[in-house]
Each structure stands twice: as C-alpha cells, then as structure tokens.
C-alpha cells in the first residue's frame, strides 16, 4: 500500500518500478487468493451491453466462488466518463478496476492513475493470448496498463438491393474497384448517395491514410512526429476526399455528418454503402429487421489489396493505482478478459472479444457479416498513435477539422495535411 501511495507522488519511471516490485511480491503467493470479507469496486460503461444486469449477477457469483471476495459494480454512462475518471483518480473514490476506452489508457497511465499489470499477465501465461493491436494500445514505454476486454472495427456496410441493381456483388479488391462500384451505383440511380464521406468521422479517413502506406504520426525514441503530411498519407486523404469532390459520389450534407448521421441516412435507404462499426448490424437488426436481411459487408480495401488497416477501438480493463487489493483486482481482470466471461460479453454486446482464441471462435461460427468485420480486425486492426498526447489530438478535433476543411473546398488536401501536421507537432512537442 505504501508503494501504491508513492506511485501517485513519484514520477512515472519510479512509479512503474515501485508498482512492479509490489505486484511481483504480491503475486508470488499464487492464484489461491483469499478475499474473504473484502470488497472490490468495478466500473463498467453503460449501454454497451443490453443484458448488463444478468452479466453482472453471474460475474459477482463467479468472483465470489473464485476468491470469496465481494464485488460492487457501478455502471457509468460514457457521456462525461472521461471527466469522471479524471476527477476520481486523484482521490479515494476511484474504483479498483474499471473499463477504460482504449484511446484513454495511455493518457491515464501517463498521469499516474493506472497500475501496470504486464508482469502478472506474463506470469499467468496471458501475455500472448490477447489480440495484438489491442494489447499494443495498452502498452506505454514497455509497460502494459490494461487487459483487452472487447473491441470493434470499422468496415463497409452496404445495401444489397441497391448494389445488385447496379450489378455490384463482389468485395472490392483495391481502391479502383471500390470507386467503380460507387460509380456503378450512381449510374444506376443518381438519387442515391453511393458512398458518403462523413466529415465528422475520422475513422472513415484513417483506413485510407493507412491503406496508402501512410501514418498519422511516427515515433522516434521518446517523441512523436506527425506523418500526416508525408506523401502516402496525403495520397490517402486526397483519394478519400476526391470521392466527394471530384467524383461526386457523396453529398454536401455529409461534410458535417457523424457516423450516426450516415447510419440514419442508410436506414432510410438513401445510401448505397458506408463505413461503419462492427456493432452496427446488430443495431439495424433490432430496429429494422427487413433492412438487416439486405445487409452486405465488405472490408475497406487498401490501395492495392482487399484489406486496409482500420482503427481498432474498444475497452481495456485496468487496475487503478488507488486499489488496496491489487491481487484481487488482477484476478477480476483475468476472470473477465478470458474464457467464458470474455466470450459472453462479446456475444451479448456484438463486439469482438479481446482474447484471440475467443475471437477466432466468433469468426468461425459467425455469419457472413461478422466474418467480414472479423477479417478486417484480424488482418487490419490498427491503433492510433499510442501516446498520452493522442487524447489532445482527439480533443482538438484535428482530423475532423482536416476532413471538413478539404471537403468544403477551404484548402487542398496537401495544404490541409500540413496544417494538421503542424497542429499535431505542437501537441507532441509541448
């Protein structure tokens, strides 16, 4: 406990060392953790799982069986969750374990709010069991600060009726074939929006930057440098925005759309195909089953191949530095991110499990739509730059601003990319 208090006071480097020392000696006792009379607090996010209550009841029971400790679960709304974490991290009301969005993990870890669990994962033989890109997004300066729980990825979802009317029925093998497909849709029915380019959604753009061989930013040593103005990235931005500007396959309204707006237009039947998350088919199934039957999915193609890297977003389960029961906390993380509980959560939420074997299971047993998204995830799952500073780039809306500027004709892609790079470098250098 003393070590843990010091974590808060000390710098990041010494903090890691102290934390490790504490954990190392703790876990040497093995898995026969006795948590009798102890209570652990867990935070999970609201709205991800429609049957959260049943899941929590099972989890409590199982955790009690395994460790004899009690579990208090608090369900937090995503809205304002970031601020709430920030506020409690300094104080005693922080949870022992919480679900943390993958892009927040490095930021919270750097601030000293999260406790590294890498060595315990190693000891428990779990190190190599998680989806690689997801574990990477929890890794900061060689330390692992969370275990992957579940994740989602973005691919292309399409309306089979509109597509087959236009004679499009196969997975685009590269950019050109995607463009051909969208143009065929436009030719068949000029009133549809073949492929909306949503200005408010950076996750639609990233696969094209990555798919052209570009990067958002590159790490050299301890520092990051923006790479979004390098030529492959600019090529990706140019090609993606040209779908709207040059080929007129989007609609002006889409330049301020978020993902939800594109989904709404798709549900009305106005959209041929669009980039969206792997959890969306389930949403559509619930709201309009007849549309669900017409769904078709493609992986987002890269410039010259079928699968472009696509952003892999989800949640880690993290142990907070304020916990008085680090061993129990780790047991809980282990319980939730592996085996039955990992698989059930994924099934109930329509997300993909963070455990590789559970993911493989979903891929082999799932339907066609799931298989496409899973392919994008396993072959193309990629993380945004893993740095505590990335949260600021997100908060500044650098990439939505880049998209918006180019889509409204304010600047050409190359100039807008240079501006975005300058903005990112200012954040990275600060």
């Amino acid at each position, binding site marked *: 406990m003393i070590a843990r208090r010091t974590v808060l006071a000390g710098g990041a480097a010494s903090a890691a060392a102290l934390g490790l020392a504490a954990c190392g000696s703790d876990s040497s006792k093995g898995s026969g953790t006795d948590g009798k009379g102890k209570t652990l607090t867990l935070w999970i996010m609201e709205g991800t799982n429609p049957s959260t209550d049943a899941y929590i009841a099972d989890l409590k029971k199982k955790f009690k069986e395994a460790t004899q400790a009690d579990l208090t679960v608090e369900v937090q709304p995503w809205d304002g969750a970031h601020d709430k974490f920030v506020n409690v991290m300094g104080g005693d009301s922080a949870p022992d374990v919480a679900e943390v969005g993958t892009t927040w993990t490095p930021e919270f870890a750097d601030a000293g709010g999260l406790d590294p669990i890498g060595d315990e994962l190693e000891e428990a033989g779990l190190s190599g069991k998680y989806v690689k890109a997801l574990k990477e997004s929890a890794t900061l300066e060689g330390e692992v600060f969370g275990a992957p729980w579940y994740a989602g990825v973005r691919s292309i979802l399409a309306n089979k009726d509109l597509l087959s009317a236009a004679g499009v029925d196969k997975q685009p093998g590269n950019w050109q074939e995607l463009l051909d497909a969208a143009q065929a849709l436009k030719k068949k029915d000029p009133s549809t*929006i073949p492929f909306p380019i949503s200005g408010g959604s950076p996750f639609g753009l990233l696969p094209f930057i990555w798919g052209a061989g570009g990067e958002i930013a590159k790490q050299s040593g301890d520092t990051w440098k923006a790479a979004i103005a390098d030529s492959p990235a600019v090529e990706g931005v140019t090609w993606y925005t040209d779908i709207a500007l040059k080929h007129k396959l989007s609609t002006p*309204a889409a330049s301020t759309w978020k993902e939800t707006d594109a989904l709404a237009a798709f549900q009305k039947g106005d959209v041929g195909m669009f980039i969206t998350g792997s959890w969306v088919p389930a949403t559509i199934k619930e709201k309009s089953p007849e549309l669900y039957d017409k769904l078709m999915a493609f992986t987002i193609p890269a410039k010259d191949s079928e699968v472009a890297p696509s952003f892999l977003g989800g949640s880690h389960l993290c142990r907070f530095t304020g916990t008085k029961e680090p061993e129990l906390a780790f047991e809980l993380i282990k319980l939730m991110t592996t085996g039955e509980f990992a698989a059930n959560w994924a099934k109930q939420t329509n997300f993909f499990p963070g455990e590789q074997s559970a993911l493989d299971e979903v891929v082999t047993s799932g339907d066609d739509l799931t298989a496409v998204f899973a392919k994008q995830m396993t072959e193309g799952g990629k993380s945004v730059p893993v740095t505590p500073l990335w949260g600021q780039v997100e908060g*500044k809306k650098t990439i939505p601003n880049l998209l918006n500027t180019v889509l409204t004709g304010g600047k050409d892609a190359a100039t807008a990319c240079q501006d975005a790079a300058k903005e990112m470098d200012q954040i990275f250098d600060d």
Partner: protein
Amino acid sequence: MSTAPSTAAPSVRRPSRAARLRRALPPWLLLAPALITLGVLLLWPMIRVADLSLQKFRLRHLLRGEREYIVLENYQKILTDDHLWLTVLPNTIGFAAVCVAATMLVGTVVALFLNTLSTPWRIICTTAIMVAWAVPALTGTYIFVWLFDPHSGFVAGVLEWLGLLEADTVNWWNNRWAFYGIAALNVVYHGFPFIAVTILAGLMTVPKELYEAARVDGAGAWRRFASVTVPTMRPIFAVCLILSTIWDFKVFTQIYLMPGGDGSNRSVMNLGVWSYTEAAGQGHYGMGAAIAVLLTALLLVISVVYLRTLLKEDDL
C-alpha cells in the same frame, strides 16, 4: 468584552462598542446565508478559475497535486493568437450584438402587443411563449438542427418545393454566416419570451395618465412610445439588455451541438466553445480557465459601459 470601558474618552452620547456591534449585527446575520451561499457558489469558484488561469494545469498536475505557475503565459498565448482576433472574438461579439438587438426588438414588440390584449388572451399568449423559453437549450438546438438538415430537413424541403434550391447541393453548416444565422434564430427564439414578459410587467406599471396626457398633446403611437414608455422603463430595459448580453456572449450549447460547431469547423468557433475544447477536450485546464477569465472580463466591461450610459446613479 462588554464591560471594557472606554477609559480614554468616556462619552455619554457615543454608544459603547458592544452596543454598536449589537446594532450592526442583525443585518449581517440576516445577510449571512445569502453571502455564504454566494461566496461558496460564486466567489470561491471564480477565485479558483483565476488562480488556475495562471498555471500550467494538466491531468497529471491534478492527480499528483502539483502546481506549476507560469503567470501570464496562458494569456500571452491567447492574446497573440490570430485565431482569437480573426475568428473567435468577431464570432462571439458579432453574434451577441445581433442576438441582443434582435431579442430586445422582438421582446419589446411582443410585450407591446401583449399589453393591448384582454387579460384572458394575455395569459394564454404569455403561457404559449413561455413554453419556448422553458424548452432546454439542448432540445431546442436539436430541433433547429433537424429543421435545417441540408439533406432531408424541413427547410431544405420547402426551399426545394419553391424551386429556390436544388436538393443536396449545399451544406449551410459549413458557411460561417449561415451557421450563425441559424444559431441566431435559435437563440432569439429561445430568449425573447423572458424579455417580452419582463417588459410586459414593466409596461403594466406605467401610469395610464401619462399616455392620456401625451394623447391630449397630440402625440402619435410612436411618439408616445419614445417619449413616455422608453424613459419610464429605462431601468427595466437596462436589466434586460445586460442579462441578454451576458447570455448571448457566453452561448455554448447552441453552438457546440450544431454540425461542425464542436471544433471540427474552426471558422465557427466562439469563446465558449474555444474554452471548452481547450479545457475539457485537451485537458489544458489552465488555458481554458484563462479564456473563461477573458470572457468574464469582457462581460464586466460591457456591463459597466451599459450601466453608465443607460442609468444615472440615482436610477439604481
């Protein structure tokens, strides 16, 4: 204490210190709850914000309880930023000026109209417009965003039907003027009922004799308004003006929730959104606080100017 005599200059007429204290205490005791509440809810946060604005304050400072004073660096950064002078300040001030003028105008006209109605109709109409006022800014904004949706909104539909617009050819959210035009409609719609009702209350207190006298003197409706209503109602107009200036300057929800208003379209940013994206978005709490302090200072200056020009001292 009460027995301590004032040995130096005993005076019969001067009450003892204790007596003076006894007389002075009750008003302060009565004021105490309000003062304490104000102090806790208003003064202390303001001091904290001012203090914060002098620091480099990030998440790690909060978690580790560190303080890093950089004195005026935040202010220097803001004041030397072109973004402030070319975008944020013109948007904030221009928008507030238009909205305040429009809200006052609409509010006054509606109040004059309501004043001419019979009591039952006045109650019905007042209730009706108060509904607009009672709608939360969030809900109201979503309604306007939905009305003006360029792809499938009501306004786009009407314009297309009239042949003024070809469907799906424009996105007015991206145009700074159109964006703020729609925001102004939203803010004025939301703000005028309060002004109208306040002015109506004032109008009903203006003595009828004044109008009768003016009419006998041959004054027309406009002249009666300018020479009787306005001078009598000056303090009420002043309060309404100051309140709506404050509201329209610090408008945030209505801008942030509009497409592109969250910072992805930088040309439509105002002080409120800028402060929010710095503080909550990027965790630059010190910087966000400095922007908020500037906004407060700006409002204070404007309020003082208003009070000075609108009211003579004895009016207050």
